């Protein structure tokens, strides 16, 4: 819980620094995010490789592992459908399209902008960034309330990279394999699902 607060503070500090241009334009936040992400993945990999239970878990899970990304797809569609009942400015298809970014904001927002225009593109961008942030902040809580697959589910496509460290920290490194697998399946589906829905 204390860590969640610290994480939020770092995000807020970054946000303010960006808004008030405290950093030179040449230092692109996106570029830096990517470098830190690579470092993070390497460090997470060390945790996974050093954990002797990883292989054991993978073997016990087998084909059922596909059920995790499947449940994320079904759940995301149900949730965004419920949202569409309350928001008259967005159609069901638009809500589903935004949801099927599964947190993969860079690709989904560009795809949606191309097909459905600027404003839905911005919603897709914000929404999928928020999915990543919600996961980063709530992973420990979700894991305690809804089991070890919950933060993987919340992370959607991001569970293979950006939210992987926080997921393994709140569920244990032996869940990294499931997390990467689920995120990979969802990531690969984004470019197919978004145009199909719109």
């Amino acid at each position: 819980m204390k860590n969640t607060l610290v994480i939020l503070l770092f995000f807020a500090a970054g946000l303010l620094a960006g808004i008030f241009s405290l950093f030179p334009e040449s230092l692109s936040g996106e570029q830096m995010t990517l470098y830190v992400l690579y470092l993070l993945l390497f460090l997470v990999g060390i945790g996974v490789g050093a954990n002797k239970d990883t292989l054991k878990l993978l073997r016990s899970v087998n084909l059922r592992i596909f059920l995790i990304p499947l449940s994320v797809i079904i759940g995301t569609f149900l949730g965004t459908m419920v949202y569409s009942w309350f928001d008259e400015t967005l159609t069901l298809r638009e809500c589903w399209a935004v949801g099927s970014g599964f947190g993969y904001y860079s690709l989904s927002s560009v795809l949606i902008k191309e097909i459905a225009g600027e404003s839905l593109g911005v919603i897709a961008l914000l929404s999928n960034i928020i999915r990543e942030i919600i996961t980063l902040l709530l992973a420990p809580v979700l894991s305690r309330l809804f089991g070890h697959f919950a933060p993987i589910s919340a992370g959607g496509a991001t569970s293979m990279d950006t939210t992987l460290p926080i997921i393994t920290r709140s569920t244990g490194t032996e869940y990294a394999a499931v997390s990467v697998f689920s995120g990979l399946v969802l990531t690969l589906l984004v470019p197919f699902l978004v145009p199909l829905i719109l």
Partner: protein
Amino acid sequence: MVLVIAFLIGGILTGYLIRNHRRLIVVASRLTDGAIFLLLFFLGLSVGMNQQVVSSFSSIGLQSFFITLLAVLGSVLVTFLFHHLFFRKR
């Protein structure tokens, strides 16, 4: 995407090689925490530097927030259901 996988696999191999050196593993896990904080800072920075996103934050922000909240809630609940239906016994 290729680099993402490459760094992860590189880390896993390194981790496997040092799996019996407890102290190195502890250092790696401390560094992981620090890198997470740094990542969030830069994520905030890239959102804050995007004029288009910042200017539409209030109007579109609420919409985006609630649609995502329901998407995450739906995902977690269905996964929870599947967990109990198909993964029980652990």
